[in-house]
């Protein structure tokens, strides 16, 4: 069935740890439509349990599609105190071109 191309989910690792009371979610790998719901629910769990502050660490995220951007934008709307830490140049450029830099809190 050569034309049956239901690809499996892309590879992503989601790690959660606390940094002086602020939860930090690290995303490593590729964030796209195939695994977006997993990441959305993982982050949702952290937010439900936490104080509303959140750091999303992106230093090992090598790809993100528009649904990933939408997730970050959605998080930024609902949780103003969200910080996107250390994105890779690819992701940083994507954020810049999509006009989201002005609403996302990217550091450094």
């Amino acid at each position, binding site marked *: *069935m050569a*034309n*049956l*191309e*239901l*690809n499996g989910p892309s590879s992503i690792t989601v790690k959660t740890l606390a940094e002086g009371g602020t939860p930090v979610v690290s995303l490593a790998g*590729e964030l796209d*439509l*195939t695994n*977006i719901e997993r990441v959305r629910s993982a982050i949702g769990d952290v937010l439900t349990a936490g104080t509303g502050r959140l750091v999303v660490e992106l230093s090992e995220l*090598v*790809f993100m*599609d*528009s*649904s990933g*951007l*939408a*997730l970050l*934008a*959605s998080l930024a*709307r*609902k949780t103003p105190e969200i910080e996107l830490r250390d994105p890779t*140049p*690819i992701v940083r*450029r*994507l954020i810049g*071109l*999509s*006009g*989201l830099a*002005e*609403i996302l809190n990217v550091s450094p």
Partner: protein
Amino acid sequence: MVVTAPLRAGSAGTSGRVRGRKVVRAVTAAVVVVGLVITGVLAVATFRGHEQTQRTLLDLQTTLIADAGEAEDQLYVEDHLGGAASVAAASGGDAAMFRQAMTTTVGGGNAFVTGSLWRLSGSSPQLVTEVGAAPLVPVTAALLGKAEASRPFFVTELVTPGARHLAFAAAASGKDGTFIAYGEEPLPANRRITEPVGSPVASLNLAVYLGPKQTLSALLETDSPAPLPLSGTTDTTQIAFGSTVLTISTSPRGSLTGITGEILPWAVTVGGLLVTFLAALLTERLIRRREGAEQLTSEVSKLYMEQRSVAETLQHALLPQRLPDIPGLEIAVRYIAGTSGVDIGGDWYDVVQLDDHRFVFIVGDVSGRGVRAAAVMASLQFAGRAYAREGYSPAMILERLSQSVDIERDDHFATVLCGLADLTAHTLVLASAGHLPPLILGGSGARFAAVKPGPPVGINRKAPLAQTEVTIAAGDVLIAYTDGLVERRGEMLDVGLERLQTAATRDSSSLDEMLGGIVTELSEDTPTDDIALIGMRWLT
């Protein structure tokens, strides 16, 4: 307008199913044939093996009987009767010594019932003495005469209506002439003997004949319940017995190798048939199961193709079927559906003519995929067209579109590029809601329009959206596209943008051919994301 989409077809032919049934029958038949052949060979081999063992054992036991049993008789007669004759010859026919010699031979539980000593002189033998009972029939001179020529002794059978005796005559010569010892041994009534249970002979049918022929009249004794002569697997051996031979014929009563040896061939046959049957059953079941799985896969594939086809049809239906024919402007478009599953994408393009020299174009991309994304796309497309007709500026159009989608409510946003062109003034006002910048091909080469992108549609913004005005000369081409055209995993977006820039500057005879070349050069073999592409050439 040209809309390209990969054509796909899935078919699950019935010919495959018919062929499948034939395969099931052929393979099952092959298994049965192989099983039967193996069973047959094994059965024959074990039958032969059993028969061979049976024969070997029979030969062995018959030899044993001949050596140990019947040969004893020969020695007995030789020792006793021959011995007595020798004693008589040595003693010159001493009657007392003969009688003494015969005490362990005749009567009192000994084998012989009658004994007598004869002196051979002239033509008629003379009786010297006799012991035991009277002979069954009077001893004849002819019988005694044969003793001299028959060493070690002469033997014959005597029959009267009431009894049967074996008559023996052994001759011995001394200085006083030739003496003949005569004796008779009674034969069992009805010629039947019973071997004791546990005797090695008990497992055999045994028939002993006097002489070389196996006739009823020659039969001395038998323990066989079966009719004579013995049939089936038999073994016959002859041993010397005086002037003639004893013929010993045997056949097995049952299996000489025990119950296991007897049932083994049958067990092999039945077991083999059973295994063959089970193997055939299992083979057929396995093949049918695989066939079922293949059919299911084929059905799923077909359903998938159908669903995908529905999605593609819906997507194409949402895109404008006909773009306006604007004087002084050439338009070409491309739409390529991605292959990532059956989900419909959210890319679109649109051109709205305002009057004879002004038009608005919109290119957008809703994040994510699926029917929800397509619905957002449809509402944005219709709203955008309406706002454009109302005469709003590109920035205003994009800001108002945010009423149709909200990231917090829909989990979707849309990157949208909107341009308002004035063909007479040669101006183009651009606004971008997070969309990639359009490429402008002019006399000085290809450049990306310096549009400052604001946040995507669906995200409430803090500051008003920026607008950029560029000048477009006659002959210039503007290419707007969605990110599927330039985005690659693990690559900076700028690399993809440069690739587009290079591909767009290659020679082409028409705008449509230019877009075709760009798509061919930039799209992957199996693009996962959708690609929407619109090209516009200012003719004047």
